[in-house]
């Protein structure tokens, strides 16, 4: 059945290449449009190249550490992870920077919402298919080379080995963890760097251009407007792609690692699990992901070839529902084929063969419910956001207060859904079921990322239409596509956060297994003792960590935005012809400022996520880190939901006012709503998305390092 995975990978990457080429062949419009698109493309390329150069140094350091301390296989898998994630981000962003101008031209030439949607979606699908294709390709490569050919998944190898440093681990778990860590490192830098870049440029462009100079959004006279458009690509395209790729890989490897530790624990308990069943459990995530990828290809294909209506939301939903439906159906077949002849009760599958499939279904359903809840709290068709826009009549303070209230309220129900789904998935198939819930949620990631990526492409297309002075009808088309993109992005964030919670729980369970080490035996219980002082202390610190992380990120955005504001003011003052349109602004200077700010500021928060579990592990030992992980996970999930939903609600409350309510554009209500949106911007686009990576990166690093700091830490040294 491994051929199924190979077919899925080849099909996804080939389809991505075809879509890339089809979009590229479309006309990029007139000279001015091409010139503007050229600035955006050059700015985005240059940022990503600089960012990758910085990451490369850190990657080399981690590779050496992994190779020396863990294993060369883990180091190689880590490199594979970075390459896959970076490639997906690069390809997707390259497509987006080529597609934006073509989308704009399509709207200009055809005046058709449907055919413009098609080009934008086809462009977005390159990122979606690259995320699914490259993630699975890397995992397949590791499974075949290290797992099969080098025998790491052979039953005799799925036991704890002791390396030259005396460190204990199950080799294949370390290899796949290395792969996940590679993906996570790129995701963290792309999300943090891209998030700082995009918000610094956006805020700089708005605060001076719109507020002080009174020029509209995306006006070519605004020096920061190109940087703002570059930011959409590096943050919302490359950042989102590598984020979802990391989530996808994280959920897949969580189930593989869990299976390996379950097998080992069972052997040590004197009650070994059927090796065929363990092999099936390790392969199942790969196969499920493969059918999810193939289903997504069908869903994407349908939208590209069908006659598209003028209702973009409906068309995008068709892709998502077709992909999800086919994934469920084909996933059931795969489950049956893989587990039908096995006694699954010995691993806690309570309702037979289909237990893990049902857990995945539960994951999909809970993802959809969380997405719908996100829409409820952030769309102006519902009360919470309407209340914020109403409050904006009473001024800025109440806009902020009401938004905080909506954001805080919005945390409870999604968390309740996660809690119920966790209990349900666990009841169906134990912790493996919880891991499967995460996989289910992300199994059709290629389709959801395609839908998510189309939004920033449409947004950029709108910017280009504006700057190239295409008429209002064109801008109406791109605006409508963009507004649908905002809703789909909010739903996508729900999936990312939900899957992070499930994956973190599975990784955490694996951490506890790994902490048990070779001593795992009959009496081993998968328990975290919360009244243990070290664990509790770790949980307290862990709970505070996402707040520190978020604070640093927001400060980084503010710092970079301040530099941008000063530069835009300087250009308006020193180059008087800008506003009369006689002189072009110095776009490149703004791009450089955003780029330099993001590259400088991204390092510290990104490194915190890697170093925190390691440093605290060596200082206080594994029990502290166990607490740290649980504290971080709980706190970060809440904070991620709060930031994503409050930011989204503020944004849409402003949009509601702009559609002619409470005085509309230019009213005091609008001014207050704009402030709310500005406050929410770094929350929803920088902090929120980075938090779910923080959770997984810390869990993965801890999992890799636990056997090391279990042996070597200050507590051991002092006999603690």
């Amino acid at each position, binding site marked *: 059945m491994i051929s199924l995975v190979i077919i899925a990978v080849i099909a996804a990457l080939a389809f991505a290449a075809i879509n890339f080429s089809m979009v590229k062949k479309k006309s990029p419009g007139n000279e001015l449009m091409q010139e503007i698109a050229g600035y955006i493309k050059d700015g985005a390329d240059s940022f990503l190249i600089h960012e990758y150069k910085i990451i490369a140094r850190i990657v080399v350091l981690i590779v050496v550490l992994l190779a020396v301390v863990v294993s060369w296989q883990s180091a190689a898998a880590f490199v594979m992870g970075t390459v896959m994630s970076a490639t997906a981000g690069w390809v997707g962003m390259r497509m987006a920077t080529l597609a934006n101008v073509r989308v704009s031209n399509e709207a200009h030439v055809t005046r058709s919402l449907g055919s413009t949607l098609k080009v934008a979606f086809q462009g977005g699908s390159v990122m979606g298919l690259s995320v699914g294709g490259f993630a699975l390709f890397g995992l397949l490569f590791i499974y075949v080379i290290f797992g099969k050919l080098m025998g790491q998944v052979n039953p005799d190898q799925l036991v704890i080995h002791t390396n030259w440093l005396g460190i204990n681990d199950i080799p294949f778990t370390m290899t796949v963890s290395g792969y996940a860590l590679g993906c996570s490192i790129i995701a963290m830098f792309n999300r943090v760097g891209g998030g700082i870049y995009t918000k610094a440029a956006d805020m700089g462009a708005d605060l001076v251009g719109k507020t002080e100079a*009174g020029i*509209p959004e995306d006006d070519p006279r605004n020096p920061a407007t190109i940087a703002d458009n570059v930011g959409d690509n590096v943050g919302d395209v490359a950042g989102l792609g590598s984020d979802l790729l990391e989530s996808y890989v994280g959920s897949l490897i969580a189930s593989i690692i869990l299976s390996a530790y379950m097998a080992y624990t069972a052997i040590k308990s004197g009650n070994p699990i059927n090796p065929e069943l363990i092999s099936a459990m390790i392969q199942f995530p790969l196969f499920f992901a493969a059918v999810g990828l193939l289903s997504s290809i069908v869903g994407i294909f349908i939208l590209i070839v069908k006659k598209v209506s003028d209702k973009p939301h409906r068309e995008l939903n068709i892709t998502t529902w077709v992909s999800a439906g086919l994934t469920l159906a084909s996933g059931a077949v795969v489950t049956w084929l893989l587990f039908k002849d096995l006694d699954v009760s010995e691993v806690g599958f309570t309702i037979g063969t289909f237990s893990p499939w049902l857990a995945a279904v539960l994951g999909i359903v809970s993802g959809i419910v969380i997405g719908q809840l996100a829409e409820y709290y952030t769309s102006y068709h519902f009360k919470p956001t309407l209340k914020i826009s109403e409050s904006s009549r009473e001024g800025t303070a109440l806009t902020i207060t009401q938004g905080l209230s909506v954001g805080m309220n919005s945390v409870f129900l999604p968390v309740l859904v996660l809690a119920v789904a966790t209990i349900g998935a666990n009841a169906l198939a134990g912790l493996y079921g919880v891991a499967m819930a995460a996989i289910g949620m992300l199994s059709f990631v290629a389709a959801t990322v395609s839908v998510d990526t189309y939004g920033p492409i449409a947004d950029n297309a709108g910017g280009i239409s504006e700057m190239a002075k295409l008429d209002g009808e064109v*801008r109406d088309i791109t605006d409508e596509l963009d507004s649908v993109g905002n809703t789909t992005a909010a739903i996508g964030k729900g999936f990312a956060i939900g899957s992070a919670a499930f994956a973190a729980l599975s990784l955490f369970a694996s951490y506890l297994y790994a902490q048990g080490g070779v001593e795992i035996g009959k009496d081993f219980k998968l328990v975290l003792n919360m009244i243990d002082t070290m664990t509790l202390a770790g949980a307290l610190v862990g709970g505070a960590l996402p707040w520190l992380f978020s604070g640093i990120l927001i400060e980084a955005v503010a710092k970079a935005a301040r530099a941008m504001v000063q530069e835009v003011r300087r250009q308006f*003052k020193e180059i008087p012809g800008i506003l*009369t349109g006689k002189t072009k602004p110095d776009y490149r200077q703004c791009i450089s400022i955003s780029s330099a700010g993001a590259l400088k500021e991204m390092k510290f928060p990104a490194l915190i996520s890697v170093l925190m579990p390691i440093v605290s592990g060596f200082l206080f030992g594994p029990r502290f880190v166990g607490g740290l992980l649980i504290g971080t996970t709980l706190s970060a999930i809440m904070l991620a939901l709060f930031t994503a939903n409050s930011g989204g609600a503020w944004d849409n409350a402003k949009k509601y006012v702009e559609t002619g309510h*409470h*005085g509309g554009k230019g009213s005091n209500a609008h*001014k207050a709503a704009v402030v709310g949106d500005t406050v929410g911007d770094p929350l929803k686009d920088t902090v929120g998305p980075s938090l779910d990576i923080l959770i997984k990166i810390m869990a993965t690093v801890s999992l890799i390092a636990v056997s090391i700091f279990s042996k070597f830490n200050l507590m051991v040294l002092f006999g603690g």
Partner: protein
Amino acid sequence: MSIYYYLTLYPMEAMIASQLEPAAFGAYMALGNRKGSAEKLIFIEVKEEKIGEAFDLDYARQRCVEHSDGRRKNSVYLSVYRALEAVPTEAMGLLWLITRDGRALALEQGDYSDPEPWAGNALYQELCPAHPLVVSALNPKHFSKYIVEDSTKVTMPAIFFADLAMPNLEDDDFTGNVGGYFDKILEHLKACIMDLKAGKGKMSKIVDRSSTATFNYQVIGRGLYVGAADGKLVFYPMPSREILKKKHYDWAKSTQIF
């Protein structure tokens, strides 16, 4: 080099000579050269041959010359007081609406007709020489006549005003994009309309003595009017939203109409 004459009506009344063409003059006045200003401006192009005797055109020709470095002369003020009343309607050309960010929309004169259907009252923003916001039971033609004729105590020799799109007074939520204009006066406006409807013999009622700080082009209804001393009414109709979207999208975007 040609000299252009501009009658600025908002935010200040003046007659200005300039070597700049109308759009460039508007951008200069709105943005300044280096002072970094951002303010709306409304002016009328005035035809030199019909301008009459009220302004010192010799002084204008003498002063309105290029700078030594070849730059055009931006502005020579000929009058900063009672300029509107001194310009004959025959001399009035295009009316220019300049946005805060220096974008220009030129309005041509159109044929006046009474508003149909007539709601019984209308909202007028007087822009020059006085600046009150008035709710009136008179249509624009009669309102203009009422102001410029000296049959009442409240009179002016000429008036420049805009009729405004009446907001939806019954629904605080769905107001349309009217900007900050009605933010603080909505309740008082309702009361004034009720007063007029009560029919106590009043033709007009002042809603606000000076709303010009928050006046914006979003709220203009049918158009703008110059009521001259001779009783003539010059009407500058606003283009429809469709025309604005098709032909003047940049300007309309800057005014936040879109």
